[in-house]
């Protein structure tokens, strides 16, 4: 069994999370959704048997990118003003 269903579920969850990131007004929660997005991509990459990509992707997606975005939010306002 190749667990292609789990890959499809994870990528479908990524699609929903991308919609949530775009429409969220609280920017700190949007950054949190970005971290969970990274987690779902990690599940999809695991089922496709690529462990060497994960070692770099975890550090960049879950930690460095979200930390940098929190730093960016701290320099601006937290609520998105339209």
């Amino acid at each position, binding site marked *: 069994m190749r667990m292609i269903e789990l890959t499809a579920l994870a990528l479908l969850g990524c699609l929903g999370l991308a919609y949530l990131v775009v429409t969220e007004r609280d920017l700190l*929660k949007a*950054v*949190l959704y970005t*971290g969970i997005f990274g987690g779902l991509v*990690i599940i999809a990459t*695991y089922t496709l048997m690529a462990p060497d990509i994960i070692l770099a992707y*975890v550090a960049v997606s879950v930690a460095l990118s979200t930390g940098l975005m929190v730093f960016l939010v701290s320099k601006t306002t937290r609520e998105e003003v339209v």
Partner: protein
Amino acid sequence: MFENTILLLMVLYGVAGVIYFIRVLLGPTVLDSILAGDCVSLDVALIALLIAVYYENNLLAGGAFFLVLWAFVLDIFASKYLVKGEVGV
């Protein structure tokens, strides 16, 4: 039998992840959302370890440890932002 047990555990951890994600969406404050997001990341690491056991491949298990280690960085940055109002790097 062994593979069916691992698949059942993956389904159970997936249901737990969905419940955590509902808490992320409905959290009254952003602190509840951050805590639930941390739980989601640990849940993802457990599912990754179960995938490694299912495929009987020890190379797959290394990424899960990195996920567990790096998931706390978001909490540290978010808590520094919520306490001080800025993230001093």
